[in-house]
């Protein structure tokens, strides 16, 4: 369950060992943009020993690898894929590269006899990715889509603005594809790390459009993002009422019943349960 996913550069011990203190629902250990070409070897080894030896608190562990077309990806996957990680994040994803990654993951899981299946979060950050987004979303193991607005803007040859009009359509398409396949829609990070007001505005807008999580490029952003993407007290209260009403003897066996004059049916009940599950996981209840 995701609200905030925090990027952590994989070659910085100081950052790695504090990755779990900021309250992020997941951490994205970055082997791509945060690591210079000459340090890729050092970063993947450091991340590997870190994940093996460091007593990290429980949270979703995501690793952003390099683009699948580069020669380093297979080395990375060989080293990094294990039972200790949950998810691989794939930059510059296309339908083709996502399928290649799926295949590689299956092979490595088989070779290493993993007990779990690694999930995939493709990053939608090229014009082609946006056009293929529904196909990408339905690839097996894909359980979330991250919009990557910075790279997308350069692909679109437009300046990236605070108003974000230039990414309105890709944002909406990413959300539609994610929701159509019942996976997470994860919003692009807000890169102005000292502008809390701007972050609040941007995150609230993304939530309104349908995003259910947002990536963070700085630890200070986590708290704000968690707050915005958490269910509100009013929502939690309403969900509890729906569940309570459903469990009354007169309603328990009905497919649908009425509450406050409104029809409550299975999707609404399921949603209420899911919301309460989240609220519990995030200590809001």
């Amino acid at each position, binding site marked *: 369950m995701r609200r905030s996913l925090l990027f952590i550069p994989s070659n910085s011990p100081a950052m790695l060992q504090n990755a779990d203190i900021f309250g992020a629902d997941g951490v994205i250990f970055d082997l791509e943009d945060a690591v210079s070409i000459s340090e890729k070897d050092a970063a993947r080894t450091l991340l590997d020993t*870190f994940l093996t030896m460091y007593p990290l608190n429980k949270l979703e562990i995501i690793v952003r690898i390099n683009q699948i077309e580069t020669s380093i990806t297979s080395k990375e996957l060989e080293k990094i894929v294990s039972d200790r990680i949950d998810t691989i994040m794939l930059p510059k994803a296309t339908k083709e590269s996502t399928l290649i990654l799926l295949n590689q993951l299956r092979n490595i899981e088989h070779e290493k006899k993993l007990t779990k299946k690694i999930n995939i979060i493709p990053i939608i950050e090229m014009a082609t990715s946006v056009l293929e987004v529904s196909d990408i979303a339905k690839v097996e193991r894909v359980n979330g889509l991250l919009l990557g607005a910075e790279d997308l803007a350069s692909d679109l040859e437009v300046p990236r603005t605070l108003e974000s009009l230039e990414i309105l359509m890709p944002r909406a398409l990413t959300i539609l594809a994610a929701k159509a396949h019942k996976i997470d829609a994860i919003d692009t990070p807000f890169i102005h790390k000292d502008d809390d007001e701007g972050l609040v505005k941007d995150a609230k807008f993304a939530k309104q459009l349908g995003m259910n999580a947002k990536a963070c490029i700085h630890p200070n952003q986590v708290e704000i993002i968690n707050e915005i993407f958490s269910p509100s007290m009013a929502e939690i209260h309403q969900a509890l009422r729906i569940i309570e009403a459903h469990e009354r003897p007169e309603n328990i066996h009905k497919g649908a019943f009425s509450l406050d004059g409104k029809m409550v049916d299975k999707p609404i009940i399921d949603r209420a349960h899911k919301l309460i599950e989240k609220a519990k996981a995030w200590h809001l209840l």
Partner: protein
Amino acid sequence: MLTASAGTMESNDCLMIVSESDQLTIDLESIVYLQFKDQIEKVIRETLKEKGIEKLHVHCQDKGALDYTIKARLLTAIERLENMR
């Protein structure tokens, strides 16, 4: 004599320099020398043993790195040394 290095002198990291040698020598400087000298040396020796290396000069300048960092920096330095050969 070939030499390779990995890591940095930043806080919580270490700079690991390895050189070809006809014996095994470890030269350790650390800001937590009194508290963790034995542990750091142990990690270095165990890592070398894992890699089957019996002859190497290891110079570690430690800025408070934890075990996983010591091990990773040593592994990378060794890998870089091997790639030079």
